[in-house]
């Protein structure tokens, strides 16, 4: 008996982790999918608009992704639109807040790019690119946002956009790096108010000093290294270690100034 050629859709998850395990949807997501595909469109439309994650009828985003694909494949475009709209409703504000670091105009552009990337993956039926969205939606969503941000920030960080003084390699050098102040460290023991104040202080630092300071003092990257394969702060910015030192000093001055002005 001839076996027919199998087409691409619909399909189970096939994407594998690096250790070779096939991605698996959380059991509650699978249960929601099976339950929802058999109820009336009216009931589905009512349930997918529930945003209270603790409500018993709340539908997880991973299940919404699946529903979009299933309705698309069954040709029910009205339900595709309803579920897409519900998913957008859940992610719009969260996306914009994450993108807010770019400023309002660039954030709006970024939002469009995030939506396009995300739905391209959801509606991709010829590869397993969208599988991650059915397994850990918010993690995948955050990855897509940060990838959009990565490109935009790289653009914003070009040396010519920095203040003139940032390109000046001279200036003062207070010596080597000093350890962090207690209230600049971040960890489980730091009270939230202190952490919030430290972040606000850091927000007052202009670029590129701020990122240099974060990488060097908080993330503990090396200032420079003789090993050409190592990633250091000076290599990231394409400037000398002495310049990085000066930038960190300027960041510390800005933080100290903010603290004086906001006791």
């Amino acid at each position, binding site marked *: *008996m*001839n*076996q*027919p050629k199998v*087409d691409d*859709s*619909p399909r*189970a998850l096939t*994407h*594998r*982790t*690096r250790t070779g395990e096939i991605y*698996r949807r959380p*059991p509650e997501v*699978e*249960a929601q999918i*099976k*339950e929802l595909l*058999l109820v009336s469109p009216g009931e589905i439309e009512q349930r997918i608009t529930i945003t209270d994650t603790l409500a018993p009828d709340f539908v997880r985003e991973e299940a919404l992704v699946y529903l979009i694909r*299933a*309705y*698309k*494949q*069954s*040709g029910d*475009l009205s339900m595709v*639109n309803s579920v*897409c709209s519900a998913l*957008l*409703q859940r992610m*719009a504000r969260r*996306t*914009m*807040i994450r993108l*807010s*670091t770019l400023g*309002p105009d660039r954030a709006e552009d970024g939002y469009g790019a995030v*939506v*396009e990337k995300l*739905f*391209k993956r959801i*509606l991709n039926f010829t590869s397993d*690119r969208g599988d*991650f969205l059915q397994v*850990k939606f918010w*993690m995948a969503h955050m990855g897509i946002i*940060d*990838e959009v941000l*990565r490109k935009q*920030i790289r653009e914003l960080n070009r040396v010519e956009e920095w203040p003139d003084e940032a390109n000046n390699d001279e200036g003062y050098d207070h010596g080597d790096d000093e350890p962090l102040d207690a209230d600049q460290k971040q960890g489980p023991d730091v009270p939230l108010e202190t952490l*919030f104040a430290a*972040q606000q202080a*850091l*927000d007052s630092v202009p670029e590129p000093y701020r990122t240099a300071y*974060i990488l060097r003092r*908080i*993330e503990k*990257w090396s200032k420079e290294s003789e090993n050409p394969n190592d*990633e250091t702060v000076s290599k*990231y910015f394409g400037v000398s270690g002495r310049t990085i030192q000066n930038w960190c000093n300027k960041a510390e001055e800005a933080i100290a100034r903010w603290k004086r002005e906001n006791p």
Partner: protein
Amino acid sequence: MEKGEPMNNPVEPTSWEEVLDAYVAEAEMPNHALMMEWIRRYPQYRQELVDFTVTRSRLANSTPVEHEGIDEERLILRGMSIVQNLLHERSKNEAAPAHTERPIGSFVSEARWLQWSPDALAARLELSGTLLAKLDRRLIEHLTIPMQLIENLALTLKRDVISILRYLGQDSTLALGARYKATQAPQVPEKMSFFDAVRNDPELSDEQRQHWLALESPTG
């Protein structure tokens, strides 16, 4: 297309998107040591990994800004416009939908229509003939059937998942062609859990049994 074409089913990610998904899945907040480890694994994405890690660090050290002026309605409309464009683009490149409106009579008859024997269908789905027959007679509680099997049934029979689930969700049927001598009408057996059926099926190989039982949720 970005660097590195994606493979159909790779264990090692090959495209930047795949590497990024795996990187994000490994650590929500990657540190320098993890970044260096990933650069050693994927030197072709050195710049992307560095930039991405720096971006995450910057965001982790920023105060989230709650803009009062976020107009969610407008954002949803803008998003829907992008979705509509994508759907339109997809519909231009798509062949006719795989499914038909014809209701499913039985899985075996669907398979025959596609020139698959019942044995070939069972083998393809990693089921025994008995388990396939139970599914076909809807003797299995459909909510216990793994999505992987439902999706593979849809793929193999060229139907959409919703049609398969609707079929599985109907009432059980009696065995086709069985003869009943009793004077009373035969009783249709109660539906059983898929995993109980797997456990009690002597025809399944150990490998097949393990495969299905590995999908059983600890909470049932």
